[in-house]
């Protein structure tokens, strides 16, 4: 049986409806909006803050939401039922990814509306954001496959939040803590790098770095997926 868009959409609709009533996950996911609202009240929102909001949204929504809605299916024994139905795991994961992508984009747009976002080289930055979203989504999928409950997911996602969601903030401390320089390579800071280029022809480098993150995360989740046997 081939991949079915109809089944993917059925999962998508179900998850969207379910999420609407899932206050715990929803409130975590909407945290970036609170930040955006607060920062948005400043007269002029600094570019670093705007990039920070983008990274935060990508990690909170892209990774945590994806991970939580996969983990919950295991926690509540609903994945077993799905796996006994004609739905395949790729269809289930794709349906969930669609939910995550839609909510991420909506959250990003709302953040931008409140806090603004007008970097240079906007098209290249958007390409970078799309690649980053793939990275965060694949990371969330991988975490969802290895965690067993929403609570576990909330714990595992913390370091990811700190590293990838807050890198734009922590990088300010790199003068004092040299090891923080590695954060320069996170997708969040590579986006800043793209915007600050004087020579656009050099943009392949940050884009390649983000692409490498995305490819790495996709490979990781595919390997885990293949190894996974749902007893």
């Amino acid at each position, binding site marked *: 049986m081939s991949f079915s868009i109809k089944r993917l959409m059925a999962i998508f609709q*179900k998850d969207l409806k379910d999420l609407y009533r899932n206050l715990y996950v929803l409130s975590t996911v909407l945290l970036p909006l609170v930040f955006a609202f607060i920062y948005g009240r400043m007269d002029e929102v600094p570019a670093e803050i705007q990039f920070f909001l983008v990274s935060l949204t990508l990690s909170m929504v892209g990774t945590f939401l994806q991970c939580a809605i996969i983990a919950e299916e295991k926690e509540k024994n609903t994945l077993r039922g799905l796996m006994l*139905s004609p*739905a395949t795991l790729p269809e289930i994961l794709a349906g969930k990814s669609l939910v995550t992508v839609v909510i991420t984009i909506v959250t990003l747009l709302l953040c931008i509306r409140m806090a603004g976002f007008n970097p240079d080289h906007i098209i290249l930055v958007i390409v970078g954001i799309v690649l980053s979203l793939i990275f965060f989504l694949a990371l969330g999928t991988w975490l969802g496959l290895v965690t067993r409950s929403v609570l576990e997911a909330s714990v595992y996602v913390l370091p990811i939040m700190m590293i990838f969601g807050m890198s734009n903030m922590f990088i300010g401390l790199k003068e004092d803590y040299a090891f923080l320089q590695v954060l320069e390579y996170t997708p969040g800071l590579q986006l800043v790098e793209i915007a600050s280029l004087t020579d656009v022809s050099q943009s392949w480098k940050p884009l390649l770095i983000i692409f490498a993150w995305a490819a790495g995360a996709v490979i990781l989740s595919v390997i885990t997926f293949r190894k996974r046997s749902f007893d």
Partner: protein
Amino acid sequence: MSSIIEVTHLEKVFGDKRALQDLNFQVEQGETFGFLGPSGSGKTTTIKILTGQLRKTSGEAKVLGLPAEQLNKPEYRKRFGVVTDNSGLYQRLSIFDNLKLYAQLYDVPLNRIEEVLEMVNLRNEQKTQVVKLSKGMTQRVILARALLHKPELLFLDEPTSALDPVNSKHIHTGLKELNKLGTTIFLTTHDMSEADYLCNRVAFLHKGKVQLLDTPSQLKKQFREELIQVELRDGSQLELPLAPASAAELQGYLAADQVETIYTKEPTLGDIFVEVTGRELI
């Protein structure tokens, strides 16, 4: 008749624990087959192996003519339905929305949802959120979900364990109906009267093996003690051999109008269960 399930020398070992050893039985197309046994005897394990959710250790298990491991391939999943004790529902969604998802996954028209809810007596609760349901209601929704796509073969792992007698009866009627329409049912239960009522044949599982397999009436005949029980009007009880030799004595009591009740001692499936497995139901 052809076998829809064929199990030969099936074995399942968990770590150092042998849950099933040398399990052998066949289920024929169109029958309701009762799989009975004490708690921990391996009923759920057998269902998991038969539905491709768990790997066997050795032996053979064929379902719908296919090796059971292949049953978890999406193209075969429409042919059977499963109700187990750990089937989950989406707690925040309504009964209807839970069933709607499955109707879409199985490619079944949405008006089928009303039909299955009618079967489990929940038609008026469609809009209720699952989190607000009682245990028995949840169990009925899970059963309804398994019936949506009209499977040829239905695995039911204790489908009425949380139900009151009225709802059990309603479901029994529904299952009989379903079976009449051609669905083969593989049923585990701790309710021996349920097994007696629903099953064409029952197997008793104990120590990882099928100890006994036959129709309920045949088993009852086989386990019948050849005795006539007589209760006299003065309250005394007698047991006479069920044989010509008892005729004179019996006739004497009858002629003297001393007999209150008289019957041959019929064992229930529960009695047979205790006899075969050596312990009470849990």
